């Protein structure tokens, strides 16, 4: 059997992924997570001295904490299986990535296992986040210096 033939056969046999259904699931679960985030944000605004501008930091921390708790209890992977990107793209996916790596490598010891692998996946999120933030700020700084936009 030739290589192309095999590929064609494989394509015929493989079931088609239900794209539309997956997108709908991700949309609604992701939206639900964001709605919970908005509720947490409003909670901080109303009951503590945070403004709309400053409530973001504690909200992110709380959402990551919730995701970490759910990951530890083994519930987040069920949400992830159901919703896919809907549960991975919001900041809760970051908390999940950190804790699941820690759980996976626990058997290798506390320092080399948990400590070394904690940011295995989340590290790239942090790295590219910082790098892209740097470049966006640089572009904005140049635009402000030229006088196209203002801060």
């Amino acid at each position, binding site marked *: 059997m030739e290589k192309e033939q095999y590929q064609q056969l494989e394509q015929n046999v493989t079931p088609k992924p239900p794209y539309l259904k997956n997108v709908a699931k991700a949309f609604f679960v992701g939206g639900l997570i964001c709605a919970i985030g908005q509720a947490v944000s*409003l909670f901080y*605004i*109303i009951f503590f*001295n*945070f*403004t*709309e*501008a*400053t*409530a973001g*930091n504690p909200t992110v921390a709380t959402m990551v904490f919730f995701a970490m708790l759910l990951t530890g209890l083994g519930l987040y992977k069920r949400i992830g299986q159901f919703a896919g990107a809907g549960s991975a793209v919001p900041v809760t996916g970051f908390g999940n990535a950190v804790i699941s790596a820690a759980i996976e490598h626990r058997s290798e010891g506390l320092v080399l296992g948990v400590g070394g692998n904690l940011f295995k996946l989340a590290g790239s999120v942090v790295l590219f986040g910082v790098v892209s933030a740097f470049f966006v700020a640089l572009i904005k700084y140049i635009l402000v210096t030229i006088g196209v936009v203002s801060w």
Partner: protein
Amino acid sequence: MTLPLLVVLMLLNGCAEKEKFIVYGPSQNGSEVEALIKEEDYVERSTVIYYDDSMLVAVQIKPWEKWKKAKLEKKLQKKFEEKYPNKDVFVSADYKIFYEANKIKKDQIEDNKLNDKITELKELAKEET
């Protein structure tokens, strides 16, 4: 099927009838301030607290206009400063400030406490982290 729809419609109607433009303070030029804000069609709701020589203008901007929130805030601030040059005007589109302004109105806070409260809110609005 029709009953829930009716309930929802009635609830939405209830929302619309809420007082949208509130002015709290000695009632000399209350309606003037109200008219001034109503001119700006991007403002959805507003609460103005004024006493002695200062003025706290808390507004909520319509959803699609919120992209330009900082700009509209500045525009409104400028407008009020021009209209009331001898008053210390502070405009904010932040939800926290709006919420607290409504609370001041609801609790009918008196003059000496009002001053402290508004200074506190101004400090709060300046915070960035």
